[in-house]
């Protein structure tokens, strides 16, 4: 890594872990915790969508996995007495497992066909949640306990959220830690041979097969990782709202996950994160425009795609004089 990049990373970590909490404490804008926590969690989901873009698949189904992860966590906690901390990886793994089953047949599709199937997936997940007895139908699952204490070998690493003076801060820190970890994984994937193979798949699957790449396996592997990200973001969302309904994640959310990637930039690892921040905040800020909120938001989005088709982060390249 270059020095400038290291510096940028250090500044970023300092900002999310120290500056943001300090600023919020100073200004008393506690509501920002919820907004920023949501941004962090959504950007984990978008990281997954971004990864499927990286193998040349348009994924509009991430909402399904967020919903699935959320339900797995909610059911395990309320009905089987699991700790939140156990359901966090389990929710992700469950989604990864399911995505293997779904991915094997549908990842053979490309382009708009794959996109359409994934779009339907979110709706299927919602209807399944409505129909199954274990998910309690439209009434959903409520009064989910806050995350308990996490202790390993008698040492309490994280105290019980219910006993905390400021659980919002705790959720914020949990979400950004997960976000940083997810993006570290993403960065590592992209910059290792795995990333090269993903690019080979994105650019030409036939040629990739001819050089001996097991394209079917790689596609499913990447899709499983992507769905894991979707799942864990769903788990934490449910923990924050302490409830989940079939409508907690709908098609709009799936579309948004994809839009975050587009707006941020599909060729930048940080793209989905930046896109999520911009769009989520942009939408919030536009509430002052009342009835015109959607109109302005959509127009801005169209303009953005026309002016910066490679995402907001491509501005950096332009300034840096690359290409």
């Amino acid at each position, binding site marked *: 890594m270059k020095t400038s990049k290291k510096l940028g990373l250090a500044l970023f970590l300092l900002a999310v872990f120290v500056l943001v909490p300090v600023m919020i404490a100073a200004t008393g804008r506690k509501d920002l915790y919820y907004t920023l926590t949501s941004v962090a969690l959504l950007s984990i989901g978008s990281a997954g969508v971004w990864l499927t873009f990286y193998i040349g698949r348009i994924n509009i189904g991430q909402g399904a996995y967020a919903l699935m992860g959320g339900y797995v966590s909610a059911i395990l906690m309320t009905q089987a007495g699991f700790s939140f901390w156990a359901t966090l990886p389990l929710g992700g793994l469950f989604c990864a497992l399911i995505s293997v089953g779904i991915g094997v047949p549908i990842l053979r599709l490309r382009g708009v066909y794959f996109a359409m199937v994934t779009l339907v997936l979110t709706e299927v997940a919602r209807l399944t949640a409505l129909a199954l007895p274990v998910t309690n139908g439209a009434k959903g699952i409520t009064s989910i306990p806050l995350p308990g204490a996490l202790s390993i070998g008698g040492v309490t690493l994280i105290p019980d959220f219910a006993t905390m003076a400021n659980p919002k801060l705790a959720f914020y820190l949990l979400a950004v830690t997960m976000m940083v970890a997810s993006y570290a994984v993403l960065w590592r994937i992209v910059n290792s041979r795995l990333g090269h193979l993903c690019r080979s798949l994105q650019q030409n699957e036939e040629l990739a*097969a001819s050089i001996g790449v097991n394209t079917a396996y790689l596609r499913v592997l990447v899709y499983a990782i992507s769905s894991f990200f979707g799942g864990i973001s769903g788990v934490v969302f449910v923990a924050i709202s302490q409830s989940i309904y079939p409508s907690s994640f709908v098609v709009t959310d799936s579309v948004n996950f994809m839009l975050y990637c587009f707006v941020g930039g599909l060729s930048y690892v940080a793209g989905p994160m930046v896109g999520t921040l911009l769009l989520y905040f942009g939408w919030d800020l536009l509430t002052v425009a009342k009835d015109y909120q959607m109109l302005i938001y959509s127009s801005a989005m169209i303009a953005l795609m026309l002016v910066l088709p490679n995402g907001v982060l491509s501005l950096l390249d332009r300034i840096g004089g690359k290409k």
Partner: protein
Amino acid sequence: MTAILQVKGITKRYGGLTAVNAVSFDVQKGEILSVIGPNGAGKSTLFKLISSFVPTSGGEVLFNGTRISDLAPHKVARMGVVRTFQETTIFKSMTVRENIIVAHHLRSKSSLFGFFIGSSQARADEAEFGASADEIVDFLGLQAIRHELASNLPQGHLRALGMAIGLATKPTILLLDEPFAGMNHDETMTMVANVRRLRDERGLTVLLVEHDMPAVMKISDRIVVINFGEKIAEGTPAQIQANPKVIEAYLGSEDAAIGL
């Protein structure tokens, strides 16, 4: 000489149309064998059948006595039967060197997870791929365009890159799909020399499907001619040139029959 690749009665039907009909021939170890035929004769289909990119309707292809027909393409590549492509099939948004490096996939000893965590085996693999890619660049004389983006390359260089990608997999037999198509005379001659060197210096067996007659006559040890999906002749370039069936296939007999 022993047969390294045996094509036995291979057939491909698309609905009612038989594109390739019971074609059989052997490829000997270390030879350069060309498959030729007029437009629409079924060359490309035959090529895809041999590289297992399309399923067969009948017959089989044996590599060193093992059936490779109807296996997944990556498995066939893994066994040492590697194809190149007719069109500009390369990884467009990678540089020449990156294209060749990524094609070293089959030679990685580390697992994908090893690459993810950057294990010592993975780092050793990466170093080896880089060195090997540079060696292939030198072998094919691509030094000047080593760091050029593949999408910026002219036709001739694209073909060479396609061959470089094939070489990176360390094949036993390389299947070239129209390696001379769209090339000018000089480029063709360079390519002919390169294909020869593959065999002479690297001991590869080469099977190619081609249109360009002068190049085929120059390069091949043996030639198989197909027409309307069937094999009509097999032999050395001299034998093929003198074969009346081949001449008829290329010049056409209907014209004479209807008095033109």
